């Protein structure tokens, strides 16, 4: 599991960085989104996945039956917060890229005069 997560995080960061370095505005915005997703996967992985017991998660004592593996709830809360922020930022980036395109009359960042 850890190896799969590591590959996923590494791959997402690589793709995101590649997109961020493009000249096209929309690709840069995609890059922003992908890099953010990479950090979310990373954050989830940082919580670790371990066997749930009643000491760790009180609700499991009364849940009955077999308990599947559980993840750290703190990182879930962090990722939720980060997703909301990232959503807002990406939306702003899209609007801004459209406006920057209108003002600078080019989608190519290197062709901007200033």
């Amino acid at each position, binding site marked *: 599991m850890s190896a799969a997560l590591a590959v996923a995080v590494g791959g997402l960061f690589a793709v995101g960085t590649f997109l*961020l370095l493009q000249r096209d*505005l929309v690709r*840069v915005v995609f*890059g*922003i989104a992908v*890099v*953010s997703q*990479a*950090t979310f996967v*990373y*954050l989830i992985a*940082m*919580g*670790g996945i371990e066997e749930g017991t009643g000491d760790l998660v009180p609700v499991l004592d009364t849940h009955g039956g077999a308990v599947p593996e559980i993840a750290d709830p*703190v*990182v879930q809360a*962090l990722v939720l*917060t*980060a997703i909301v*922020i990232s959503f*807002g*930022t990406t939306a*702003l*980036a899209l609007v*801004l*890229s459209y*406006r*920057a395109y209108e*003002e*600078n009359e080019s989608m190519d960042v290197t062709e*901007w*005069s*200033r």
Partner: protein
Amino acid sequence: MSLLVIAPLLVAVTTAVCTLALGRRPRLQRAASVGGAVGYVASVSVAVWALVLGPAAPGAAVYQVGDWPAPFGITLVLDGLSAFMLTMAAGVGIASILFSVRYVSRENQRVYYHPLFHMLLVGVTGAFLTGDLFNLFVWFEVMLIASYVFVAFYGTDHATAASFRYLVMNVFGSALMLVAVGGLYAATGTLNMADMARRLATPDAYGIDPAPVVGLSALLLAVFALKAGLVPFQFWVPGAYTAAPAPITAMFAGVTKKVGIYAIVRCYFTVFATASVPVDLPGLTAASPLGFLAPVLGAMGVASIAVGGFGAVGRDRLESVFAYSSVGQVGFIAVPVAIAAAADPAGAFRGVAIAAALVFALHHALAKGLLFLAAAAVEDATKTGRLRHLGGLAGHSPVLSGAVFVGLLSLIGLPPLTGFFGKFLAFDAAVRGIASNPGPSSALALVALLVGAVLTILYATRVWTSGFWGRETAAVEVASADSGQVAVLVALAAAVVLVGVGFDPVYRFAETAATAALDSEAYVDVVGLNGGDRA
């Protein structure tokens, strides 16, 4: 536990909401905005006096959000360091909003200017108060989202391009910060700064391995340096500073940059300093993350001084000169911090060097705030910000020029202005750094400060002689400065002089702040983690 800790935060949020609701009543909205800023200053003053500086003050206080005990909930802490930074933010904030009301056109003020301004204050205040690493990230984002909009505020080609670049840079920075925060959580098992300091001090007791902290802290350093605009992360500074409305640029230079510096000092000196981790890199061996910080931040500071200084000398626009100067001046703040990191942990010198950095930060906030606002007033009056079109302003509008003169002299560092003490203490720290830690790196720090000081004199003189002396140019002859704007400038200039003349209490405040920054145990105590392991 005290509601007073979050009073500035509450005031700023309430004002943001009120100004948003009053969008259709411009006059009321402006009044609410200014009133909110006054309330912010009042709440900061009361909180700082009652909790940190006053005779009966406990020295530090904490607010546990939702009454959750410390390592589990979010903790907001007002200690000496936070108090110092908040006071600075309040001073620059009130000047900036008063100037905005007179400077930004009425139509533009109605376009969410005031709510955004107060949201910027909310973000800054939260970042100064929080005692939780992830929460710090959230406050950074609050501050940044307001900043993106402000950089793009005028919607021109320049502004949208600058804002887009600023946004991409900072989103990547935020991603790195999340990586660092997540890594620190995995390594130490906590996000609470006080808890982290405690765990790093005795890693065996908590069964954690502090080794990854050095690398993760380096990631954090990169993010904070990006916020502070230190070389090699300075390239967004000139574009964003010249694109944003001038009063906001004063806020950027005076306050949001200092958030980066504050975060470096808080995280490294209060939290990571407690860890003893061997650092073994090529050309760098040390016993704690601070040993890593010292050379890296020192090099960044020295490079910032050089880039900022040389960049400022050649610029033609007043705003660009001050934007580059701002890069250099942050170097002047970073170098004493680096010297403090290299100093003996047990000695008193470390606190002296931190206090020097804080005093310089205060000086920079006041003087650069004054100069950015003055540049805006000059541009408003003459319709040009280019030095080659300016000249003879000293004879034409003596009061405005007088305020600029005070700002430039403070930048150069003439007594009895605030800048003198900032420079004096920075040099003092550098000289003592050589005495306590002889070697080429300490000498380089001193040389860099000297070169930086000479460059400051150079560009300050250039601004004054070509813009304010000489024959009045055509643009200056028809100029008429707005009296309200000039009044704000005069008030800021008076603050620069008064802080310098009555420097003793200011220095004691800075010393209190430095002590608070270095005393991890007291920080842990305040947060309520002393005695026994709650977890």
